[in-house]
């Protein structure tokens, strides 16, 4: 049975449900396409899950043999474009929007993250499948430098603008409430952190460790300050 657009789109949401070290997303893509993708059973499949619709469309329109010949170049292109646009730009943008919205309320913070990320991600999923089903020419046009990646510089500028807004709001918030020390300490620590992190990345577990140590050091300084102020009185 050949699935329609809605069926392919719905099943696409489960692409990574069977993710595993050997086949990666192979079980997922075979489940999406059924017998059309049986030739994939022998080899692994791994692509950015949001843009995997291009691969699904390629298999549907060009056939499994043609897909197998172009598999590595297509999945690398999907990884390159998708990882930059979605994990590198869209998700950080949503996180920064959420951090800014914490000024308003906790619910606004959660809503901002979901509302910035989801419409754009769902559009990309829909577009990847729609263009994928148009065939090779439409897929290559979207994955070229003038395709989806043309949006990357605009997203990066918006990301930079929002980061600046977050920092500005944070510092003014501290100064306005008379917490000059926290404002100054935050500025110094973030600048030093940025100078360090632009040269090398910290691993997933080092980040909380460093944040924790920084927080405790900050706490120690606050205690000393409180004691100094108390002894001055």
């Amino acid at each position: 049975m050949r699935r329609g657009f809605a069926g392919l789109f719905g099943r696409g949401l489960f692409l990574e449900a069977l993710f595993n070290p050997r086949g990666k997303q192979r079980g997922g893509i075979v489940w999406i396409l059924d017998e059309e993708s049986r030739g994939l059973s022998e080899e692994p499949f791994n692509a950015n899950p949001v843009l995997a619709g291009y691969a699904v469309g390629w298999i549907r329109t060009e056939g499994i043999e043609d897909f197998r010949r172009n598999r590595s170049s297509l999945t690398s292109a999907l990884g390159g474009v998708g990882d930059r646009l979605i994990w590198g730009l869209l998700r950080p943008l949503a996180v920064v929007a959420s951090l800014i919205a914490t000024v308003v309320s906790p619910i606004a913070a959660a809503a901002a993250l979901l509302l910035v990320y989801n419409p754009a991600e769902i559009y990309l999923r829909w577009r990847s499948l729609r263009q994928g089903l148009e065939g090779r020419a439409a897929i290559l046009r979207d994955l070229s430098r003038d395709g989806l990646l043309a949006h990357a510089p605009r997203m990066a500028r918006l990301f930079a603008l929002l980061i600046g807004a977050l920092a500005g709001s944070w510092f003014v918030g501290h100064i306005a409430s008379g917490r000059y020390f926290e404002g100054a300490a935050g500025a110094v620590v973030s600048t030093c952190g940025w100078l360090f992190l632009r040269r090398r990345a910290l691993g997933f577990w080092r980040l909380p460790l460093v944040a924790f140590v920084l927080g405790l050091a900050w706490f120690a300084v606050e205690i000393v300050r409180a004691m100094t102020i108390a002894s001055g009185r």
Partner: protein
Amino acid sequence: MSTGLLQAIGILVWAGLCSADQRAVASRQIHQPIVAAVVTGLIFGAPERALPVGLWLQLVWPTPMPIGGALLPDTGSAAIAASLVALAVPGGEGFLIAILFGLLVAWFTIPWERRLRRANGAREERALAARGKGLTGAIALGVGGPFLRGMVAAGAGLMFARYVGGWIEPLPRTPVLGLLTKSLIGGAGALGLAGLLARVQRETGRTWFSWVSAGLLIGAAGRFLIEVSR
């Protein structure tokens, strides 16, 4: 914090959904710590008490990259478990215990994820060997595994909050511990901002400084107006 039956069911289902959202289904980003924590707070009627925990975890893990099959901790489960502790134990010491508990939960989810992926591999092999028969069941189990992991993490959070939280809560408080939450969030905030600045510099290229400066002015002016209107 007293937990009603409906709240307990609600939190277990929410934790299951968040954990499945990280990889297995849809990826709507409900597993991001700030979202997972705020909704946990909402279930217990106190989102403002859960927000600091979600904020701290979000700041230390602003944007992990799930590429190349990287094994990432289940941030949603960690945030939910930590929020449950923060809701049970108020103040700076509650916040400190909550983030340590959240990190511990996150650490335990990594070997669990590795096992889930191995089990997925075995199920996939069997289904493909049977020419795709049983693949739908394998997908359902592939979603059920992370869902169960989220529920177990939330259950651990509920137990910890109930027993350990109940033991800590009556202890005498020192006013100085009130500074602890602020300091820990300050440290994570500065580090998170530094990480995001480094990321934006890589993504934007040479013009990054102009855009960040423009944003700085807009953010400062906006916050100034908000503060004045208050």
